[in-house]
C-alpha cells in the first residue's frame, strides 16, 4: 500500500519531462521592469527543479518562514472552467494524492490560496473569474492549465473565448498539456511550491503594481467587469 502511495517525486518528474517537453518560449514583455527575472522556468517545466534555484535563492528559501508556510499549505479554489478540471480528481485521490503536498480543495475564494484555471475562459466566465480573484485574500496564486489559458488553444479563433489570460489576471504558473496529465499537474504544483518558497510567485504583487494596466485590458475585452442586467439585480 505504502509503496504504491509513496511515488517518488523524481519518478513523477521524469514522466513529466517526457510528456511536457516545452514547445513554447517564454513570452516577452509579460511583466513590468520591476520584476527583474522573467518567469522563464514557470513556462518550461522541462528543467530539473533544483537547477532553477541559484544558491542565493536557496538561502532565501530558508529565511522566509512566511513563504514556507504559504508554500506548504496551498488551499485551492476549484473553479473548473474547462476540460482540464477532469484531471484534478486523479491528482487529488489515492493515486497521486495532492494532500501530501499540503494541498486541498476549499469551498470559497476567501479561504483559498491558489486559483486553478482549468481550461478555456469565455468572456462570461472571465468576469466571474476576475471577481473571484479579487475576493481572494493575499497572498494568492493563479495556475493556468493547458494551452487555452496560454494562447487560446483550440479555441483561439472563437468569438467568445479569450486568448491570453495573463492579460487580465496575473498567472504564476502554467501547466502544459491538453489536457495536462495528473503527473504534470502534480509536478506543476511542486514547482509552484518551490516558487513560493523562494518568494518568486509574486503575481498578486504584480496585480497591485500594474492594477491600471490589468483593469485597462479587462475593460477592453469585457466592457465593464461587474455587469448589471436583469439577472443580477
Amino acid at each position, binding site marked *: 500500500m505504502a509503496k504504491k502511495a509513496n511515488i517518488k517525486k523524481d519518478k513523477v518528474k521524469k514522466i513529466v519531462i517526457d510528456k511536457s517537453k516545452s514547445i513554447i518560449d517564454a513570452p516577452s514583455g509579460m511583466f513590468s521592469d520591476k520584476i527583474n527575472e522573467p518567469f522563464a522556468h514557470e513556462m518550461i517545466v522541462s528543467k530539473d527543479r533544483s537547477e532553477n534555484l541559484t544558491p542565493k535563492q536557496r538561502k532565501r528559501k530558508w529565511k522566509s518562514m512566511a513563504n514556507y508556510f504559504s508554500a506548504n499549505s496551498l488551499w485551492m479554489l476549484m*473553479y473548473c472552467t474547462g476540460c482540464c478540471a477532469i484531471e484534478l480528481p486523479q491528482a487529488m485521490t489515492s493515486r497521486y494524492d495532492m494532500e501530501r503536498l499540503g494541498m486541498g480543495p476549499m469551498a*470559497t*475564494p*476567501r479561504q483559498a490560496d491558489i486559483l486553478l484555471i482549468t481550461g478555456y475562459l469565455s468572456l462570461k466566465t472571465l*468576469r*466571474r*473569474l476576475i*471577481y*473571484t480573484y479579487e*475576493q481572494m485574500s493575499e497572498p494568492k496564486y493563479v495556475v493556468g492549465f493547458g494551452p487555452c489559458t496560454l494562447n487560446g488553444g483550440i479555441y483561439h479563433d472563437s468569438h467568445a473565448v479569450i486568448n491570453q489570460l495573463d492579460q487580465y489576471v496575473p498567472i504564476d504558473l502554467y501547466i502544459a498539456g491538453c489536457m495536462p496529465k495528473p503527473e504534470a499537474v502534480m509536478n506543476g504544483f511542486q514547482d509552484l511550491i518551490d516558487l513560493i518558497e523562494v518568494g518568486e510567485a509574486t503575481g498578486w504583487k504584480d496585480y497591485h503594481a500594474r492594477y491600471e494596466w490589468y483593469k485597462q485590458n479587462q475593460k477592453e475585452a469585457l466592457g465593464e467587469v*461587474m*455587469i*448589471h442586467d436583469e439577472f*443580477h*439585480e
Partner: protein
Amino acid sequence: MTILTIIIALIVLSFATYYITKINNQVGAYTTVVVTLAALVIFLLEGDKLSGASSIGILRFSVTPLAWFFSIIMLIVYSMVAFFNPYWMKKILHPGAYNMLFLLSLAGTIGVFFAENFIVMFIFWEIVVWASMFIIPFGKSRTASVVYYAMSTFGSFTFLYAIFMLYANYGTFVIKDSLEAAKGDANIAIAAFILMLLAGFIKLGIFPFHIWLPMAHGNAPDTFSPILSGGLVKLGAFLTILITTLLPIHEVTKDQAYIFGVPILIYVLMIFGAISIVVGTLMAIKQDDAKKLLAYSSVANGGYILIGILLYDEMALSGALIHIFGHAIASATAFLTIAAVSYRTGTTKMSELGGMIHKMPITYVVYLMAIISMAGIPPMTGFISKWLLFQALADQGMFFIATTMFFGSIGSFLYVFRPLSVLFLGQLKPEHKTVKEAPIGMLIPMVILSGITLFYGVLPNSLVEYTAKIESALGFDKVIETSALVIQGNNGDLHAPLITGIFAFGFIIALIIFLIAPKSRKVGLMDTYTAGEFLYTPSLYHAGYAYYAPFERLYQKHPNIVALFAALVQKVKDFGKFIRFVFFSRWPGRGVMFIILTMILLMWGEKL
C-alpha cells in the same frame, strides 16, 4: 416612610399625571420618569427601614424581604422603561390615560407585594389587571386585551374563591395566619393552593394559560411590552412563591405518593412548568415578530421559575428568585431594544429588517448582553440562576423535568439568536440607509439595565445573599451558602468572578493573536462570496425569512391549544345564539312555548 404613603402618593400622582399630560405630553411623560425614579431611590435608600405600620382600615401592609426584592425589580423595570415614554407620546392614542395607568399599575404591583392580607392583595391585583388591560389596546389590537382580560378574570375569580374559602374556614384574611391555619386540613389547603396557583399560573403564562402572553406582549405599545414581560408577569411568580413557601405545600402534601423526592401533586404541577418550557421554546423559534418571540420566551422562562419554586429547595428557590431578577431585567432590556428599533424603523417584524447593527451599534450591544443573559451564558445573571436550578435538579435526580429544561435552555440559543442574526446582523435594507442610532434618552436606560445584568453575573454574591435572607424570612431551615466570591451548591461550587476572569484572560490572548496578525482590509457587506455571481440587491441577499425552516418543519403539525380555546369560545357563542333564538327573536311565541314546555316538564316531575 411607610408603604401606605408611597402607594397613596403613587396613586395621587398617577391621577395628577393625567392632567399634566393633558396640558403637555412631554412634561407628563417626564413626570412618570421622575416619579418612578423617585420611588426607586426611596426604596433603595430606605431599604429595610421601610415600614408597613400605618394603615387605613383593612389597608394593612407588612414589609418582607421577598416583597422588597420584588418591588425593587419592579421599580427598576418601571423606571427604566419610563425613559421611553416621552418618545411614544405621539404614537399612543391617549397619552394622558397611558401615563396615568402606567403609574397606577406600578402602585398596584407594590400594593400586591406588601399586602398583609388577601383582600388588599386582591384589590391591588385587580388594579394591576385593569390598568394593564386598558393600556394594551393602545397598541395594535383590541382582541389581545379581551383575551388578557378573560384569562385574568378567570384567575381573579379562582383567587377570590380561595380567599373566601380560607376566610369561611378560618375567619381571617391575613395571609400568614390563614395559610398557617390551613396547614391543619390538607384538603382545604390543597384546594386553596390550587385555586390561588391558577391565578399565579395565568399571570406567569404557564401552559395552558400562556396564550394571552404573546398576544398581549406582541400587541401592547412597544413601551409597555417590557413592563408586561419584565414586571407584571412576575406577579404570578410572587404569588406562587408566597403560597408555596408560607403554606408550605410540601408539608401539606407529604402524605401523598412521592416521585423523584417530591409529592405527586407538586410533580404534576412541575410538568405544567415543563410543558410551558417546551411549548414556549418551540413557539418562540417559529415567530417572525421579535416581540412575540420574546413573549414566548417569557412563557418558557415562566416554566423555569415555576419549577424552581416548586422544587422547594434552598438552591432552587434561590435560583428561581435570581432567575426572576435576571429574566425581568434581561427581558425588559431585550424588549426595549426592539422598541428602539421599532421607534426608528416602524416595524418589529424581523423579516422586514436586517443589518441594523450598522446603524444602531449600541442598541445591538445591549441586545447582545440581554440575550446572553436570557440564554444563560456566563458572565451574565442568567447563568447564575440556571446553574443553581440545574444543581437543584441534579440533586433531586429529576431527569424528565431536566430534559425539558435542557431543551429549553439550548432552544433558547436558537430563538434569542434569531433577532440577533436576522434583525441586527446581515444585510442592511436600502430603505433603512438613513436610520439613526436610538436617541440618547433611550440608550441610557438600556445601558444601565445591561450594566445591572453584567454586574450581578460577575459578582452575584450580594444577590445570592439577599435570596438567602428571603429564604430565612420564609422559614427555610437551610439557606443557600456563599463565601467571599463562591456560591456553594449541593454538588459543586460556582466561582463567578473566576469564570469572568478566565474569559477576560482568554479575550486578551485572542486579542493579542488578532493584533499580531496582519491588518485586515475592510470590504463592503455586499462583497461576499456569491459563487462568482454579481448581486446588487441587499434585501434579496439576506437569510431572514423562516430562519429555522428545517427545524420548524419537524413540528409544524403540532396540536394547538388555541384551537381548544377557540372551540370553547364557539360553544359559548352557540349557546348565546340559542338563547337569542329562543328569547330575543321577533316571535315571542318561541319564548312562550319554551317556558310552557319547561313548566309542563316541571309539573310532570312534581306529579310523579
